[in-house]
Each structure stands twice: as C-alpha cells, then as structure tokens.
C-alpha cells in the first residue's frame, strides 16, 4: 500500500471498514457521521501511510486509534443525541424486517432491547462508552483496548466496571422488566450505587 498498490489499499479497506464503521456508529449513534469518520481515518492512511509503525503494535490497534481520535473530535463538537432519531428510525426499519419472522414477540422484544441498550450506551460519558464498545461490542481484551485507548490495562478495567454499573442502572429505568424482576431490580439499583 505504501508503494501505491491500489489493490492492497482496497483489500485493507474491505477488511477494516466494517469494524471501524460500527465502532464509530456505536460511539456517535449517527450513521452519516460514522461514515465520515471512517473516510477520514482511511484518508489519514492515504496521506501519510508511514504513520503506521508495525513495531508499535498491530494494525487493528492503529486503525481503531485513528478512528477514535476522529470520534472524540466529533463527539466533542456534536451531541451524541443528534443521531439518535436516525438510529431509532433505523432500528424501526429493522422492526419491520424482524416482524416477518416467526417468533414475533421475541423478535420485537429483542429489537426493543437493542434500541434501549444503544440509547443507554450513547448516554454514557465518552470514556466509559468507548470501554464498553471496545470490550463488550468488539470483544477486545483489556490489553487490546488499552492499546487503542492508550491507557493502562487497570484503567480500562475500572472504566469498564463503572460503565457496566451505569448501564445496569440506566437499563433498569428504561426497560420494562419481566414480572418478578422489576421490583427486585429497582431495589438492587440502590445497592449497586
């Protein structure tokens, strides 16, 4: 790619655009913004391909790191709730898709859960949000996430713990709990805090 091989660049893009797009989407909640972020991240690679040094770590960490920088810039500039309407509409579209399946109630419940979790994640502070997105949604280890976030493993661990506590608390208030769970959950939230 550094030598100008277009095929190599196309291959690299195909391999990584999906995860990077999803990361940007889950961090911003805005599909248009996520596309811009992905485009900007790859433009960084086009403009200065030698900024990536394999001795410093794997390509995945580098690409996620570049993407994260753009995400944080966008998050600082715009409210994450700007994209929620679009995302909610998108999830609504998925409702229609899911409604054609056999287990209608279960799918609707699943879609509702996805919507609520997405909303809860987007309402987290960015430092906690990125810990959840990387470790829980992108299934990174603490070490891999620490490489992307450029912080110690212990920091990732504590941020993730705090983020999940916050998510539990938010989901208790957002989600209609199944019978028997609701009362205990609301009592439990006091205990966790």
């Amino acid at each position: 790619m550094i030598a100008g091989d277009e095929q190599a660049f196309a291959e690299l893009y195909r391999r990584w655009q999906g995860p990077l797009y999803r990361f940007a989407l889950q961090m911003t909640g805005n599909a248009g913004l996520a596309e811009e972020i992905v485009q900007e991240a790859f433009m960084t690679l086009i403009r200065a391909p030698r900024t990536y040094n394999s001795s410093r770590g794997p390509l995945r960490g580098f690409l996620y790191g570049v993407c994260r920088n753009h995400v944080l810039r966008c998050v600082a500039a715009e409210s994450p709730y700007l994209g929620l309407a679009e995302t909610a509409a998108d999830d609504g579209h998925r409702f229609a898709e899911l409604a054609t399946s056999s287990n209608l109630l279960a799918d609707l419940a699943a879609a509702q859960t996805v919507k609520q979790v997405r909303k809860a994640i987007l309402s987290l502070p960015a430092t906690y949000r990125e810990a959840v997105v990387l470790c829980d949604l992108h299934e990174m280890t603490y070490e891999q996430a620490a490489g992307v976030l450029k912080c110690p493993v212990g920091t990732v661990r504590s941020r993730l713990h705090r983020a999940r506590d916050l998510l539990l608390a938010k989901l208790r208030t957002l989600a209609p709990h199944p019978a028997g769970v609701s009362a205990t959950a609301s009592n439990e939230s006091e205990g966790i805090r």
Partner: protein
Amino acid sequence: MNCTSFREAVHELDRDDVLDAAVYDSAVEHAQICTRCARLIYQTRRLDSSLRALARADEHREASPRVQTQLLRAFRAHAPARQGGWHALRWAVAAAAAVLILAGGAFLVWRRAPAPVRSHPAAHAASGPAASPAPSKTTAMESLASTLRPKAHAGRSARAAKPAAQPEELDDLSEFISLPYADDDAPLGAGELVRVRLSESALGLLGFPVSEETPAQPVTADVVIGEDGVARAIRFVSGAAPSELAQLRAMTPDNKGAKP
C-alpha cells in the same frame, strides 16, 4: 467473599481468563447464599445478553460503497505525489552519498599532504630580542619542508620561500643544507625549526669540514628536526663569515640546497 468484593468481580465472572479460578468459585459460592448478589448476577448476565444482541444487530453494518469509491479516488490522486516523494528521497540519498564520498576523498588527500611544521619555542628564545614573529617563522618552515622534499625542486622552493623575518641574517644565507645522513624522502611531518649555537668541532661531527685554527668558534644555525626527532638540514645564520660559510657549503658532502 463478601458483597463488596462480589460487586467488584461480578462484571468479570463471564469474561474468559480474567478472574482466578479461586475468585470465581468463591463468587459463585457467595451468590448461592446471598440473594442480592444472586440477582446482581442475573442482571449482569441480562446486560451481557443485551450487549451481544446489539453487537449482532450491528455486525453487518458497513460504510456505504460511496465511501470506498471516494477513498479509492483519493488514493489514486495521492499516488503520484507519493511516488514523487519516494523518488525525491532516493535522489536525496544519492546526493548525500556523493557528498560523503567527496568529503572522504578530500580528507584522505589532506591527510597525505605534508602538515605544517611547528615552530619550536626554543627557536624564539635562542633568536633573542631580534627574533621574528612566529607567523613569519612558520612561513619559512613551510618553505623548508618543501625544500627538503623532492630534490629536483629543492633549490627553487627555498628561493621562493625567502622568509620576511631577519633579512639581515638570512639574506643570502637562507639555503638549507641537507645533513649527510638525513633521509630526504622521509616525511617531515610536524617537524620543528630550532635555532642553535654550535661549535665548529660539533659541525665536524656532522660531517662538515672544520677549521683547525678556530675549532671552538660558535656558529649560529637553524636546524630542521623531523617529526621523528632526526635532524634533517641545517642553515647557517651567523657566527661565521659569509666567505667561510660559502666555503662550508662548497665543502659539504651533499650540497643539495646550496645556491650556485
């Protein structure tokens, strides 16, 4: 394990290779006896399930093909600049290598060239108040170095490098005479010019003819001493009459530097 430590570990119970087996076992044991912590495990697992559902819902989401098209266009646009930069870098490296080779060659030539002869402090002391300043002496010594090198140029070089200092003493006597045992082809290196007063008997030891009538008469002379400490040539300055000096020159065994 108590409830506080259970809450610290609960988010890592289902995460592979994070908790020690012992911690995991004690957490599970605690949840079996503590209802609140058992509910917490249930809620945490529901959260994990919800997060997995979100990840599954998003797993096929990708940027639109428009982004790829734009990026490939940008890649093609940057390719000439990138190649140009690479070529420029190659030229810069080649130019730097050429400069280094030239500098190395110049250094080797400089190293092989004769080094200027240093003036010996004793020369200043011996020459007394009328001694010439150091720069003039250095000029004279440089000319001496060239006088002593190739025999074919010896006389010419010495004449060309007549020193400005002590004209009354060196006027017609500025020719150096190679000493009989001196190796003229040996490099002079950082040699020295030393002014000395010698008796005629000492001159005899150097192979010069000595007057039997006045063997102890002092003769002032400049002696060129090579870097190896060996005297190479001598120039008579005073203490002998010009006629006697001329006679001395005429009688030297190898009158290389003498004027006709």
